[in-house]
Structure formats: structure tokens, C-alpha cells
């Protein structure tokens, strides 16, 4: 799929953020917190969190993409995502409350948007 395919679906945008690592991923939402860093059983999950600390690294390694509410282009989530070459957006306001656990989404990090 091309990035342009998604740009036409602007009516389905759920969340916007700042591009931290370019790319597109499809998967199910997995909301993680500092208190719950369990690795989900779903293989194709997109990590959604407020912000990360070093303990999130294993989750990041196993995720298809990352959406973080807080942080910028030099935050953990951003640095690790670029290292792993997985899409990531940061400063995605209210992502953990708008997106629901298990929801199927498309993360178009190149354009900083999340679609249903």
C-alpha cells in the first residue's frame, strides 16, 4: 500500500501526532502502561502509550508500530523506532483514551495520522 492511499481517507482519522519514524503499519491496538508491560499474544500489535521508559524496549521490539502521547523526536520511543525501522508517531494527544484495546488501526507515521 502507498502512503497516498491513506491520505484520501481523511474522514477516518482517529489520532494525529508528530512523525518520529516514517512508515505505515496495520495492526491491533495494544495499550501499555508503566504498570502493565506484558507482551500481548497478538502478533501484529501497535503499541499505544503515554510515554516510554527503558523498560518498554522489549515491547517496542515486538511491535509493528508505536503511538506515544508524550515526547518528541529524541524520546525513547522515537529513537528506538528509528533504530528498528518501525513507524512511530509522538505527541499524539489523547491516543490512549481515543484508541481502544484490540481495535484494528492503520498507523501512517509518515503523515502523522492513525486511521480506523
Amino acid at each position: 500500500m502507498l502512503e497516498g492511499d491513506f491520505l484520501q481517507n481523511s474522514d477516518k482519522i482517529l489520532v494525529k501526532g508528530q512523525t518520529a519514524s516514517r512508515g505505515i503499519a496495520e495492526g491491533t491496538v495494544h495499550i501499555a502502561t508503566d504498570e502493565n508491560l506484558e507482551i500481548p499474544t497478538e502478533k501484529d500489535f501497535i503499541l499505544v502509550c503515554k510515554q516510554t521508559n527503558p523498560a518498554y524496549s522489549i515491547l517496542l521490539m515486538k511491535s509493528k508500530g508505536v503511538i506515544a502521547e508524550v515526547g518528541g523526536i529524541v524520546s525513547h520511543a522515537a529513537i528506538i523506532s528509528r533504530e528498528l525501522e518501525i513507524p512511530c508517531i509522538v505527541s499524539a494527544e489523547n491516543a490512549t483514551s481515543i484508541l481502544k484495546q484490540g481495535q484494528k488501526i492503520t498507523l501512517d507515521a509518515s503523515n502523522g495520522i492513525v486511521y480506523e
Partner: protein
Amino acid sequence: MNDIDDYLESVKIAYSKPGGSNWPAKGRQISNTFITLAALNQLRQLKEAKKAKTDPEIADLFWSTTQIRYILTGEFVIGLKILEQKSKKPSIEEISEGTQNFLNLLKIKAKEDPFCLKGSNKLLSKSQAEEIENSTKWQSSNKQAIKKAVVSASALAWAFGYDTYYTNFMEIHGPYELGEERQLIVREYKFDWVKEVWPEAPELPDMLKYYLIYGNGKITLDWEMHHDESSEMTLQEYAAIKVIDGKETTILDNELEEIIEKNSQIVREQVDKVNCLPILDKIRKGALLVFLQTKCLADELGQDWRPAKEVEQCILEKGLDNWNSTSTKPKDPNAVASHWITRFDPRVALND
């Protein structure tokens, strides 16, 4: 431009990138309590070393260039300027001279581009980089695993160094141009100091080294070791090495997964441990991490590298208040950069 202008320009570039991390707290929540004592200690150590050693000998007492850069922007300039404001001692001239002395060490240690203004952090000469290219047994079959290995090692450095003081345990240098659009990046993770701060930490190799050769695109490194890659960057070849008791051993592809799992587990345990520490203990560990930066200098001078008793006194008296006082730095990245530049310029007194 002189060295101090170059240094400030480089800091401005690094600080204009938004959104650093705040784990386990904002850096200033930890260091504000003892920043003047740490800066005075760094100034004293440098002055004493200069009486007995040449600049190249002193430069060798820092394991990385980034460590010197972090000392300047972490404690040295701001700490002394705060002190100057309160007691008129040391003078702005002394602070500027001390800053220049650290910049001189940086210029000795870096083979070129000491202020990262060209987007590099070069610790190796061209011939040294070519020697690595020619003598290394390169691998290319499990690129995903090496990327994860790099991430897990970085997470170790962040977990043991708090996010702010990871330069005690990690250095990224390069890019070294090898021709034919091939660039070498060296990532070194030095864990032999971990137990100085965290004596109960599990055994780790003294060092992990990852050599990564990229094709196409461009990688840049800034004053804060932030790296930025253009999207067309491709990892071509890599080599992983562990160092134990001075002996280097190549890590084979089939060993990487085990290392990733082990490192990730240690990171989780360390983060949990830090999160459970009382605030004053978090600050005490932060003080150890700050003073660890000049451990080799202290060792060479025959002194204890650990914080003096005055630091503990400060932590007891002011630690909680400093922790609870919130930073009011502006949110706009350019405003953040300007905010810090005024504080990092050793030639200008603080007005607030």
C-alpha cells in the same frame, strides 16, 4: 567563530530537537540539588590535573567525547554560573577559561568536527576506521536481530544511567566514510562502571561493541549523541563483539537472541528497582552518576571519585524541595534552545 560560539551553536542544534525523556525524573529535578558542588568539583579536578598532566593525557582520562560534552551542559557551566551569582566566585572569566579547557580536551579527543557541527562524532582516524573494516568478520544474515541487540544495549545504558547520564555507559561514534556510499557507525556500551553505582547489578560484559555499516543516505550525530538517519538508510553489514577481562570475542548471530532477552530482562528489573526508590535515594544515585563522569580524573589524582559529604548534606536539606519544584521551560523547541543557550554560555552571567 571561536570555540565557545561553536559549542553554543552545536548545543542549539541539539536542544532544538524536542521531547527528550524524563525517566526517572527531569534531569534538573535530580541535579539541581548538588549542581554547584558537582561543577566546583569538576573545576577543581581539571585545575589540579592541568598542574601535573598535559592536555592529551587529561583527554585520555575521559572514555568518550560525549562524556565531556555532557559535563559542560550538564553541570559545569550552569553550576558555576549559579554559584557566581550567589557568591561572586568563581568569576565569569574563570568559568569561561574552564569551559575553554574542556573544549580543548574535546578537540584533542575528536579526530575532526569536535563540536558535531558537521553532524559527526569521530573518535577514529580514517585509517583506524579502514582497519576495522578490513579486520572485522562481517555478518549480514540477521539484520533485525542486530537492530534489537543495539536497542537492548541502549536500554541498559539508559536504565543504569538514568536517561540523563547514560554517557557513562554508552558512546556512538562516526559516521566514518568507507567509500562506495558505505558508512561505519560504532556503538560502544561500557558496563564495567555499572557496579560502582549499582553494586547489586547482575554480571555484564565489560563492554559490548556493535559495528554497523550502512549504505545510501546519511546519518548525523549531534552534541547530545542524538542520531538522525535519512529514510533511505540501509544496514548492509554488522559485527557484534563482547569484551570480558580485556578479551574481545565475536558474538555470532545465533547468540544475539539470548543476549537481547537477557538484556531486556535486566532492564525491566533495573527500571522497577529505580521506580521503587524513595525520592532522596533517586537523587543520591543521580549524584553518583554525575560524579562518576570524572572517575578516571579522580583516580589519577589519587582522590575518591564519589560525592563529598557536602553533597549528602545538600540532598538532605534541599533534595525534596528541588524535586518538587517544577521546571517552567518553554514548550516551543526554538524557545527551549534559546532558553538553554543563555544558561550554557560561560561568558554571560545569569540574570534570573
